């Protein structure tokens, strides 16, 4: 095994071009587990922890360009306002030790259906900045996941950054597990309200071969909110509407039975998470428009 230590992004790309089967490693929270358990013996490891660019982010008017190796801890502390859904998801990852090392780039590279970032990215809207010595391309997050632990990355490509749409409305994330820390999600749900576009974004984790959006549920909710003029009025959501949204979200799942839960349980739990996250997000939205319109604070 060779341990390659590029100190610049250019060197990293050159190393990946020369050794397409090389495994990039940053936080090591996935890769080292595979090596420790002898599940993987790559001929080359490319250590990305010395490539400083990967640990920075830029906040633009419409999106955040998040370096691939920025640890979850920093997303939680520095990007909570711009990327609330991702910050919530980051906070549910593993433990402090894991969040100090793990990153969105690594989560994407592993492309596990259970990756905690994925539902948040799908709901918010994002593009993966993939680069090789051949050039840079932006992969829409909807096209990124191609199968269980498979992504649209080419063998010579590395993830440089993720461009994530800045929140314009409330975002929520919730997952089901046996305890709060250190569990792989049984299932997870991300929700983003995009009030300016009168649009709803969703993401489901651990309930299909890849992370998926609940498109029918998104379209149903956006249409229902528009029809009843709820975006403008901020009225409470009718129970029937919330229930229908939750059922459509469950319908977007294609889960399996495994050690963490049955397919039936996952469908049920996704519906529950969809209902809860919509409730929380809508409450925040009502607070938001209440305060911007100078309305009196509502009683609980």
């Amino acid at each position, binding site marked *: *095994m*060779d*341990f390659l*230590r590029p100190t610049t992004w250019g060197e990293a790309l050159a190393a990946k071009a020369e050794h397409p089967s090389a495994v990039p*490693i940053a*936080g*090591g*929270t996935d*890769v*080292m*587990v595979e*090596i*420790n*358990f002898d599940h993987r*013996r790559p001929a080359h*490891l490319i*250590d990305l*922890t010395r490539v400083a660019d990967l640990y920075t982010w830029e906040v633009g008017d419409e999106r955040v360009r998040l370096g691939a190796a920025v640890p979850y801890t920093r997303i939680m502390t520095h990007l909570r306002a711009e990327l609330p859904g991702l910050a919530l998801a980051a906070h549910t990852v*593993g*433990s*402090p*030790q*894991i969040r*100090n*090392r793990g990153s969105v780039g690594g989560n994407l590279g592993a492309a596990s259906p259970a990756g905690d970032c994925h539902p948040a990215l799908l709901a918010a809207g994002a593009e993966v900045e993939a680069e090789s010595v051949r050039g840079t391309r932006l992969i829409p997050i909807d096209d990124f996941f191609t199968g269980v632990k498979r992504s649209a990355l080419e063998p010579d490509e590395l993830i440089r950054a993720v461009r994530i749409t800045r929140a314009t409305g409330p975002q929520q994330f919730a997952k089901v597990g046996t305890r*709060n*820390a*250190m569990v792989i999600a049984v299932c997870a749900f991300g929700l983003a309200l995009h009030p300016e576009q009168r649009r709803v974004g969703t993401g489901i984790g651990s309930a299909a071969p890849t992370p998926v959006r609940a498109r029918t549920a998104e379209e149903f909710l956006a249409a229902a909110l528009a029809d009843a003029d709820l975006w403008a009025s901020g009225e409470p959501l009718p129970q029937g509407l919330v229930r229908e949204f939750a059922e459509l979200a469950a319908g977007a799942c294609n889960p399996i039975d495994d050690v963490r839960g049955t397919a039936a349980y996952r469908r049920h739990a996704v519906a529950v998470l969809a209902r809860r996250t919509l409730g929380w997000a809508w409450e925040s939205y009502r607070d938001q428009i209440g305060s911007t319109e100078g309305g009196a604070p509502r009683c609980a």
Partner: protein
Amino acid sequence: MRVNLTVNGRPQTADDVWEGESLLYVLRERLGLPGSKNACEQGECGSCTVRLDGVPVCACLVAAGQAHEREVLTVEGLADHARQRAADRPATHDTPAPPPDTPEPAPGTDLAAARSWQASPADPANSELAPIQQAFLDAGAVQCGFCTPGLLVAADELLERTSEPSDEDIREALAGNLCRCTGYEAIMDAVRLAAARASQGG
């Protein structure tokens, strides 16, 4: 490959390191520092928690080569680290300047001293232990002891950044450290005790 790193303030070199080896293996098997424990090897248990450039991490998930030219703090260096931290804090009273021609002692923890380190009973005011270590002893927060080194490193880092942690802060900071004896209540007591002693300047 060769890995040069600073462990507990002292430069160390490990040779013939396998490229897929973890920092934990280097610490335990090559440098003879078995304080950091090897248990799950997948970042689940926190027994191997060390600080890498100040940040708490699972040493089992750090590739040895990633620690090259970095600074590592293990439980063996915790007492020295705590003493150094206390000395670096702004003094509340005048301390006499050291004699000018005393040679500067080498920084950090000597490897031989770290290897032969033993806990000895001491009173909290004049302890050779880090305050968090003394608090664990006094609160009876050690049962089988396997999780203790990782908990000490994690708890010490919490108290370094949060002088008066709430119970929620403590639970969150220690969420990545499993105790199979389930002695969590006494562990909570120990962290509260260390925080209380620090706030009283003791």
